[in-house]
């Protein structure tokens, strides 16, 4: 009897897992825009991970084709060094996306952990943590970054992401705490406590999955936030120059190539702008599906 039961339940969990993915598939299929969003995001992920491999470490420049408008050869034209703008966008995506990923991970992990802890423990810890969070939220991010940029050399995307992440967890922590507090009041958390289930089970298996859509959404949103912030800082030119980066491209396009004045460099300006907008679009479209993916009821409807 028991011998037959084991494989059965094992397969039950796999079916369940398969059900989850087929549910996700269903949710995605529900609106074509979501599929488009997924395609875009997958595209960006691919671009960041593998894109640079298709190009030499150092992009060759053509001295005879400096700052050229788009053509068949160069879809978005060339930069003032005669390099292909599209290639620059692709190789530059790694920095941007890596940084954004680091930011998102830190924001979400830190924010979620603190929010959960605070909401779950309540009492003194909660008060202290939330005071800190309030303070953090009060300190304006961008100006702080500007001031920080004078002391800190953001020498790698990881470091940059680290700083952005450390600056960004406040909102998530606050929201996760609120969610935790409200979920805490739900019977199922209390029941789990009454059954003597461990805190790690309660947090990991009961609370987190219920907040998953929320956390996932925050993750995606902090990706866009990180992209904007770093690209913006590079654009302002307050960060040290980094040859492969969208923000640097924008900065150079405007302040070096004069893209706002002469159409030849417009491609140089528009390419990173388009990349940013496309990424935003992808994220907006996918965020739209988050709720339905993580909520079994909506998923299967």
């Amino acid at each position, binding site marked *: *009897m*028991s*011998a037959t*039961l*084991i494989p*059965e*339940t094992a397969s*039950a969990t796999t*079916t*369940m897992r398969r059900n989850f993915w087929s549910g996700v598939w269903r949710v995605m299929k529900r609106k074509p825009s979501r599929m488009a969003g997924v395609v875009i995001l997958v595209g960006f992920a691919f671009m960041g991970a593998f894109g640079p491999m298709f190009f030499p470490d150092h992009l060759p420049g053509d001295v005879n084709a400096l700052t050229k408008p788009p053509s068949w050869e160069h879809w978005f034209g060339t930069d003032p060094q005669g390099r292909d703008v599209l290639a620059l966008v692709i190789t530059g995506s790694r920095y941007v996306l890596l940084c954004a990923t680091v930011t998102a991970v830190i924001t979400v992990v830190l924010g979620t952990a603190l929010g959960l802890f605070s909401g779950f423990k309540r009492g003194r810890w909660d008060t202290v943590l939330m005071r800190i969070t309030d303070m953090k939220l009060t300190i304006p991010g961008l100006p702080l970054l500007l001031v920080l940029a004078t002391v800190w050399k953001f020498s790698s995307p990881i470091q940059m992401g680290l700083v952005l992440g450390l600056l960004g967890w406040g909102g998530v922590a606050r929201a996760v705490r609120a969610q935790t507090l409200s979920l805490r009041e*739900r*019977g*199922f958390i*209390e*029941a*789990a*406590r*009454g*059954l*003597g*289930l*461990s805190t790690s*089970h309660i947090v990991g*298996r*009961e609370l987190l*999955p*219920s907040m*998953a859509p929320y956390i996932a959404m925050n993750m995606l949103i902090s990706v866009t936030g990180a992209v904007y912030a770093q690209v913006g800082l590079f654009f302002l030119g307050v960060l040290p120059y980094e040859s492969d980066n969208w923000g640097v491209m924008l900065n150079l396009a405007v302040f070096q190539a004069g893209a706002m004045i002469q159409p030849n460099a417009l491609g140089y300006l528009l390419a990173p702008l388009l990349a940013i907008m496309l990424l935003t679009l992808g994220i907006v479209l996918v965020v739209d599906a988050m709720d339905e993916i*993580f*909520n*079994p*009821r909506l998923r*299967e409807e």
Partner: protein
Amino acid sequence: MITGNGIVKTFKQRGNMLGAREVRALRGVDFSIPKGGAASFIGESGCGKTTLGRIIAGLETYDDGEIVIDGVPMSSLTLKRRQPHFRKIQMIHQDPYSALNPTRTVHQTLRAPLALRAKQTGRSKAWMDERAAEVLSLVGLDPATVLARYPHQLSGGMRQRVVIARALTVDPEMLVADEAVSMIDVSLRLGILALLKDLRERLGVSVLFITHDVATARYIGDDGDLYVIYRGQVVERGPVDTVIADPVHPYTQSLLSAIPVLHGLELPGEQPVVPLEALNAGQDDVGCLFAPRCPFRGERCDTERPLLQLTEGVPQEHACFHPERRSVIARPMSEV
């Protein structure tokens, strides 16, 4: 056997800087529920029923008093050590919709406590699955169809059964059912009540029933005690049928009088006590807590607080200076 002595609970709502507001939810409650027995708490909204239930289930701390579970006084243990004892007491929530995690299937929901148990007792995974099926069958659900479902795919009644099944996974000694049927369709209520009754009989689980509805209390445990709670104090306590038939506390009487009469099947009671106006929290320093609303108030009531006690000629304990039996509940037509 679970007993409580003088349980006191005061909620301090943290106000802004200028002092806290206190809510005295329980003011020294004694209770005792024998193994396999039953007890019911009734009282109007806000009287502290849920708070007491949660304290008994170990989900809430208490400020004073003692709870003894199977002879072990809880005050002698650290908070952590109390847990295994309190685990014997499981709470069934009022709202089966929120009592189950919407992101987890019934299987997952049952598995978690079973896994814990399996770990403690060194049992196998197979046992877990067996046991899951077993508890589901116990509550009258078909494991095959229910296990893989999410809560939203179940009806309210089924959900409440799953909640009970989940409580059964830890082999509890007592179930605390806090208005366990009030959110369930009328035609299904009795099914759940019958299940609880059945579990009492078959598994020897004692049931603590918290409700507005005295009739359901009677259904679950007509051999148990009925506790009438008023503003955190037990004002009358005795065997269910006695209290229902011959209430002596004016509060119990108005509570019972408020139960609608099924005209056509029943006739109104002989001496109904007019239902009271809604409770407005009043002073609580001196005198009988109920005095401000009491139609039979005497002078003493304003200066002295009556304690729960037995008096001569009254079979149940009560906290009233003027106990008087009144037959307030409706009588069946057939008896007339």
